């Protein structure tokens, strides 16, 4: 060595990069980036007594059936999935105008029934559409009354508003226990 003469010798930081690279590679290998996201569902608690289905008036319930061939039946009619959201919104915001749909938004129920052979993909799509209908209806109501969309209401400061929107459009989305129709 001895190229040049210096008063204070430089500290050799050349291996610093190697150490940092080592740590970097370690973190690249051992970590993942995905943040879990999903459709939230509240399952009903198990009860011994059978539910009082007969008490519900038929007009309050929007029946959605998905069969093992992933076909959709809404209130007895075959329907494609892109029309489901609108149908569900009509049902929730009907307020007694159409005699075949719900008499009031607080009483409206959506019943989702599936077959054991329904694919999970289709089921999630249908569930997603129904959730979207609820979210949009709540958004529109919140926009009209508070001038703010439902998702923008802050849970800390505007708790009452959120409660009001929720009580106006309660999410009564029931998932029935699966039936075995047409399984060979």
């Amino acid at each position, binding site marked *: 060595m001895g190229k040049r003469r210096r008063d204070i010798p430089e500290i050799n*930081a*050349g291996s*610093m*990069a190697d*150490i*940092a*690279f080592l*740590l*970097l590679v370690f*973190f*690249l290998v*051992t*970590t*993942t*980036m995905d*943040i*879990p*996201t*999903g*459709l*939230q*569902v*509240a*399952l*009903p*608690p*198990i009860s011994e007594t059978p539910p009082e289905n007969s008490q519900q008036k038929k007009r309050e319930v929007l029946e959605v059936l998905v069969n093992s061939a992933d076909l959709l039946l809404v209130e007895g009619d075959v329907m494609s999935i892109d029309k489901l959201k609108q149908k569900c919104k009509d049902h929730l915001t009907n307020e007694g105008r159409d005699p075949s749909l719900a008499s009031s938004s607080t009483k409206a129920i959506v019943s989702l029934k*599936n*077959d*054991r*052979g*329904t*694919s*999970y*993909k289709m*089921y*999630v*799509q249908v*569930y*997603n559409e129904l*959730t*979207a209908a609820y*979210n949009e209806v709540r958004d529109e109501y919140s926009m009209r009354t508070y001038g703010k969309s439902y998702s923008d209401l802050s849970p800390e400061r505007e708790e009452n508003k959120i409660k009001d929107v929720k009580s106006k459009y309660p999410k009564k989305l029931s*998932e029935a*226990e*699966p039936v075995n129709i047409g399984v060979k």
Partner: protein
Amino acid sequence: MSKFKKDGGRSTPAINTSALPDIVFMLLFFFMVATKMRDREMKIRTKLPQATEVEKLEKKSRLHYIFVGPPLDETLGTSPRIQLADAFATVDDIQTYITMENAKKDEAEVPYMTTSLKADETVKMGIVSDIKQELRKVNALKLSYTAAKAAKD
């Protein structure tokens, strides 16, 4: 190199790499912040379905995971299997698993525990319904159908 050399034999000056550690540390901190630890080995394939109305799951410590899908190891067949923690399981194991996991947690946290169901999109609803029934039996009523975020149309 030799063609750059003068007769005197002066070697080329070394490239200044003193900023390299800074750059690498910056990358390192980015990955440390943006990622989370991988804590289980997947034995099954889960290609998640897509949905637009997904919500972020709040606390990772308040999650149970159940995986359903066809095994990655093709010698095990293609019919969907359930994976709990690192091992294959059956529907009957779910109750025990959830109870055991809950026992590890603080008692006050148990009502907030959410089950994250990661199922492959090809799975049939039969097995999913069975899992839902088992979860109801152990009173684990908060469920999340894990789905990838799709763009709204």
